[in-house]
């Protein structure tokens, strides 16, 4: 398989790069300053693209690679892959579901506790010498028992529910249709209804045309100054401009954000707010999970080129 050209869209993981390099003829897209020259020289040999949440395979790239057979994404979200075009052209698409579910759910809960209990703020308080100077830190609102509303009850949404339940949190959710769940999770037919009836709203659905800005001004108003939003999905799930003004003006209680509309840009109005917790898209960012994701990407590519069933096909 060493002659099979695989195009990696951007730096994403050293171990993944190493494993791709071992097995295929790996092209690192970011090493070629002149995209046009690179494509005219090598496009014929490229039969696979490995993308991620930052850079996937859009229509332009797919059109520029006539030999493309498979897009294997180093992510579970496929909003950066033109799925319709792939389907049209018979190009296979795989992602990395399941292996990152737990880490993402863990981070969602971690953000909730850090936000409500002001963990980062109190760490800053200690490191700034304020405990000695100003005395005790303030009282912060309890996490256990707060109502949690989940947008999207897929693998990640369910994993978040399971953990939040262990903290005595009543669970409610919104999804395209009600799910049969073994525990009593209350279904709401609209996101505004969900937001009106929970204290912690968390986004855990896929990003599609329909779910872009699923958290908008109306939802933020419904959540209100006692409510908080947690985003471990994709930045465009939330109307970021509305979110920032709601936070700055005190119309929303707080936010825990792992994703942003224009990563790695983060609105700097959020930097000084103590009711905001910000992490740099680290939902699946552990050594263990990135290795498992790598194994899945490699496994899918090998299966494809050996004419075996794909491990996690989406198209």
């Amino acid at each position, binding site marked *: 398989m060493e002659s099979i050209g695989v195009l990696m869209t951007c730096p994403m993981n050293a171990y993944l790069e190493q494993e791709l390099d071992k097995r295929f003829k790996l092209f690192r897209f970011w090493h070629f300053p002149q995209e046009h020259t690179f494509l005219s020289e090598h496009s014929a040999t490229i039969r696979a693209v490995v993308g991620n949440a930052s850079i996937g395979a859009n229509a332009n790239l797919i059109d520029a690679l006539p030999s493309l057979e498979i897009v294997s994404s180093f992510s579970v979200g496929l909003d950066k892959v033109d799925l319709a075009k792939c389907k049209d052209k018979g190009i296979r698409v795989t992602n990395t579901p399941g292996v990152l579910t*737990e880490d993402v759910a863990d981070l969602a809960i971690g953000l909730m*506790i*850090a936000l409500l209990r002001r963990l980062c703020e109190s760490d800053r308080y200690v490191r700034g010498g304020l405990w000695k100077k100003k005395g005790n830190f303030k009282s912060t609102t309890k996490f256990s028992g707060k109502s949690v509303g989940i947008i999207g009850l897929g693998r990640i949404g369910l994993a978040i529910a399971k*953990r939040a339940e*262990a903290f005595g949190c009543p669970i409610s959710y919104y999804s395209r249709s009600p799910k049969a769940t073994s525990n009593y999770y209350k279904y709401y037919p609209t996101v505004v209804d969900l937001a009106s009836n929970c204290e912690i709203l968390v986004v855990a659905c896929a990003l599609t045309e329909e779910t872009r800005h699923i958290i908008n001004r109306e939802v933020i108003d419904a959540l209100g100054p006692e409510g908080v939003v947690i985003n471990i999905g994709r930045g465009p799930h939330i109307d970021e401009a509305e979110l920032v003004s709601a936070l700055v003006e005190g119309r929303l209680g707080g936010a825990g954000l792992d994703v942003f509309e224009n990563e790695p840009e983060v609105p700097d109005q959020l930097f000084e707010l103590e009711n905001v917790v910000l992490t740099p898209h680290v939902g699946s960012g552990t050594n263990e999970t990135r290795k498992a994701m790598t194994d899945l990407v490699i496994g899918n590519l090998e299966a494809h080129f050996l004419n075996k069933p794909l491990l996690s096909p989406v198209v």
Partner: protein
Amino acid sequence: MNTDLPFLILHHSPQNNLNEFIHRFGSRFHLIDPLLPSFSAADANLSRILVCVGLEPVNPSTLDRFPSIQCVIGTTAGIDHIDTGECHRRGIKVTNAGIAFSEDVADYAIGLLIDVLRRISASQRYIRSASWPVKGDYPLGSTLGGKRIGIIGLGSIGSMIATRLESFGCIISYSSRTDKSKTNYTYFKSVDNLVRNCDILIACCSLTSETHHIINRETMMLLGKEGIVINVGRGGLVNEKALVEALVKGELGGAGLDVYEEEPIVSRELFELDNVVLSPHCAAFTPEGTEMILDVVGTNIEAFLANKPLLSEVKYA
């Protein structure tokens, strides 16, 4: 002044805010504040109950000063600041906070742990210093699921930590004075054996002469350079000097600390480390917890005055 009301001595430091206490109990009891100029020793001698606010020490001289006391009502989960041995000798009952703060402390322990493993506070500093666009992706953290957790002390806080962490797919073991055999968790009589079988240690037991420095240098070396220590009990449970050294030298993977040996002093060397999360002894401090402790205190006082069993009596061990 209605002298038919029972008398309560409020034993506190000048820093303590007594407003909530006065609001809840001021009309039902005659509250005696020894720090006020109006304090009358004669009134104090009419009180059978001393409420120990926060961590104000209750020692033999306190008990000498208020000889009529028959019950000390604690307002915290940990009562190592109350000389329970001396109280027992004098036939004085002692109560603590019961489970008023247990959920909050358990939540906080989990929060600290996820923060340490997934670098939440550290990566937030990264974003806030505008480093993300310049320096690229933040270094990878470590998965919580599947990790072996060793809980030191399986009281109400320890058990709540255990049930929460089970939902994350962690494997739970514990060490406690007695084997709480009703659980599914693996019991180890000694912390030495516990630590050989876990990746993460969580200290949430009471501080006594037996548990002082129960986490020492040896424990940390056994835990190893991927090991994590979380302390939401008392600073004295951990040999802080050894902990700082192990962290600075990279011999221990990380730590989440809410308590320290000499509060509010925290070793400055810890401030340089991104694998450490520090909080100023506030795990129990929520408005909800404050409401609950007032309930617990009220219930204990009423029970004592009615000669009934106390809600959260600490029996002398």
